[in-house]
């Protein structure tokens, strides 16, 4: 496991280096609404931009303000300081107001060779689904033209199959977490999912297969309570580790960089782009979607019940109003279903803030009698 955690925390890990050394291209994206299958089908490595709790922001702060989410500023910092220079291009999405600013500044300063704006609708309706499918077609065309590759339906279907395999395996890993006696910690699970977005699919599958085999009969140590973690972009492994060090085992999550997007493809007919549009938009369990609250609530409630959690910790990064507002509604709905909730505002990548966070979590564990 130590390997996976180390690999997850490295921005450019050995697999990415090897891919590039062999002449492979890498495209960066951030939002979970980006269909990686299109990038995979082009023979390009999709890389989900992350900051893994990096606290540095001084370059980014010259462009974005302190009223912007620190996660986006940390990612921008890594883009500006050259850490992400191994990317051959960027795919922007209108994930949220902060993310748009991050991409605009990144593009302005670093001028990547390839930059494409994938516009993701905020609603799940027939007209917006059709618009999104058209957007995916534009993305496919832009990648094909810029990288002089062909992205045919056959390649897309193969990429979709691989992606679905991986999602299925990640769901199996979550099954191991959710057991009465969990076999995987929340920190480990977050590391695995974080790594899934930053290495070639086949290599990741092999690694994950080995991990699942190794953990099938394992048991994590003693703990006080079964917790669910939900909310905003959180790829800081130390954050989950600290919560678990208090005895709050994170047996389930509904995090943006966690288990929120491990959906099953439904055969809705149509070609692969149509299937991707349906799959991604329907399963975008993110408060950036509107008139979709019930879906988010049900997903989180189902997760909490399936994992038999003692309580839920709903977090948001300071200035992320989408999650902060949604969490208020979720708290009411979860508590009315008998799931105690702790709302936590955190500053991304601020380890100095962990003392306060730990005190709140300790108090919560006491409140729920654990």
């Amino acid at each position: 496991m130590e390997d996976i955690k180390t690999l997850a925390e490295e921005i450019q890990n050995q697999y990415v280096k090897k891919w590039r050394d062999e002449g492979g291209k890498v495209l960066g994206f951030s939002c979970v609404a980006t269909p990686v299958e299109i990038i995979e089908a082009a023979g390009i490595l999709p890389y989900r931009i992350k900051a893994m709790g990096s606290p540095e922001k001084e370059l980014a702060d010259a462009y974005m303000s302190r009223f912007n989410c620190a996660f986006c500023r940390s990612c921008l910092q890594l883009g500006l300081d050259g850490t992400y220079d191994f990317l051959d291009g960027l795919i922007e999405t209108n994930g949220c107001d902060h993310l748009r600013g991050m991409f605009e500044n990144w593009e302005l300063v670093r001028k990547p060779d390839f930059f494409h704006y994938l516009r993701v609708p905020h609603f799940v309706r027939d007209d917006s689904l059709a618009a999104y499918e058209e957007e995916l077609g534009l993305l496919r065309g832009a990648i094909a033209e810029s990288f002089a590759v062909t992205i045919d339906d056959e390649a897309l279907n193969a990429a979709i199959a691989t992606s679905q395999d991986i999602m299925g395996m990640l769901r199996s890993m979550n099954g191991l977490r959710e057991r009465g006696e969990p076999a995987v910690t929340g920190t480990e699970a977050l590391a695995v999912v974080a790594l899934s977005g930053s290495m070639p699919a086949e290599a990741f599958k092999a690694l994950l297969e080995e991990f699942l085999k190794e953990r099938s009969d394992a048991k994590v140590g003693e703990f006080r309570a079964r917790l669910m973690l939900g909310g905003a972009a959180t790829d800081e492994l130390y954050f989950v580790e600290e919560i678990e060090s208090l005895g709050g085992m994170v047996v389930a999550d509904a995090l943006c960089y966690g288990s929120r997007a491990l959906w099953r493809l439904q055969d809705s007919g149509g070609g692969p782009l149509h299937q991707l549009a349906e799959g991604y938009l329907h399963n975008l369990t993110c408060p950036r979607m509107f008139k979709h609250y019930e879906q988010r609530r049900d997903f989180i409630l189902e997760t909490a019940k399936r994992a038999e959690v003692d309580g839920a910790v709903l977090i948001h990064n300071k200035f992320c109003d989408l999650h902060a507002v949604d969490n208020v509604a979720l708290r009411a709905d979860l508590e009315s279903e008998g799931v105690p909730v702790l709302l936590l505002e955190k500053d991304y990548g601020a380890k100095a803030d962990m003392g306060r966070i730990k005190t709140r979590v300790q108090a919560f564990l006491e409140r729920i009698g654990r």
Partner: protein
Amino acid sequence: MNMQLIHPYEGLFNRLSGILGIIPTLPDRLSDEDIEGLARLLPAEMSKTLKAVLEPGMREASLAFFKAVGTWAEKAAHAKENGKKVVLMPFNFAPEIIYMFEKAVPIITEGITTLSTAALDKQGDKYWDFALSMGLPDTLCSASAIEIGSLLTGIDFQPDLILSAAPGSCDDNSKIHEFTANYLGLPQIMLEKPADTSRRAQELYLTYFKAMLREMEEFLGEELDEDRMREVIEKANRAHELYDELWEYRKMVPSPVPNIFNLYIYGTKYTVWGQNEGITVMQKLIDTCKRRVETGDYPAPKEIARTYWAYLFYYYDFMEFFNWLEKRGIAIVGDLPSTWFTKRIDTTSKESMTRDLASNSFDYFMTRQIGGSSVLLNWCDDIIWACRELSANALIYCGHHSCKQTWSVFSALRSEFMKRTKIPTLLLQGDMWIKRMTPMSSLHQQINEFINNVVARPRSSRK
């Protein structure tokens, strides 16, 4: 619990409509003595506002504006007894679209907050506090959270529907309105702006716009009537012509347009556009400007700066703030909400009206810039155009903590703007609707320093 904190008569809209409802009963002309008498009846803050807006040079226009918004508030307050539904919506949507329906009247979240900030004793602070007490974050926009805070108490005047066109251009605004609709069990209609400026995006927006109209028709049980549409739109078109005429006055040096008129322009646009009152106010604004041109009346010895405000300005002391600037020769030649890229609507047919309404809605303030392909470039291009048109020599951005989209690109915008225009830029920070965030004295000081040391002082005399 709510009942213990806030009583029905203390709800924000209830209080505001109570006060504004009195204004239409006032005569069109008020003497200095009348105003002095009125001021004595009011609490200190309200009295200050009253005196500021009714300064002799703009008294008639101010009265026309406040009478218009008084009528608007009255219509909403009595809508239910008149068999109409009240539609609450954020400011980036045209009220004339609501007026096209026989059975609906619009109220505007930020309009209520802004007017309350001017007219109510202790402004909107307690409603903001109430919203925060529910766990909502203090990083929300106070323009919406103040009125929403009052609504969430559950005992203020309640709308029948929430309609939001903010998705795609403001996360904060969209999310708090969605939350409120869910919390209060109100129906909601939302219109998305694709983050794009292409022809394809405009066509997609038209599809969404038509779907929104159908939802409205279904909710109200009323099919849009072409004649009524035309009647409302012709009034909106007439008011738009007057806006264009006023734009010409705004170009003049020194500016004959009182600073506060920027607010009156969009205050009118957001409340009574498409109504007779909208035309009346716009005409009064022009009459005042015309008179000032004829008499050469200007409140300061000299116009030393022509400022364009990149987004909004400060409202919590706004009546005095405008006059404070003006008396120092600092003109506000424009701000983003009073700079329109909308057009006259073709009233030939229902389809032509619908298309042009959608097109104007696409180009509405904030929707156009922040909901564009690039927040930075769309916003920057529009500001540069306006600054050149209006001969601005200073740009001011009054950053509100909640404006995550504008804050995220303002640094780059400032560089780009200054490179292209050579116009100096001042970045301020403060909440426009809550006075306890940044004291007005601090803002005065920063503006004074910027204007006196950078804008008004010749470059050669600087060391």
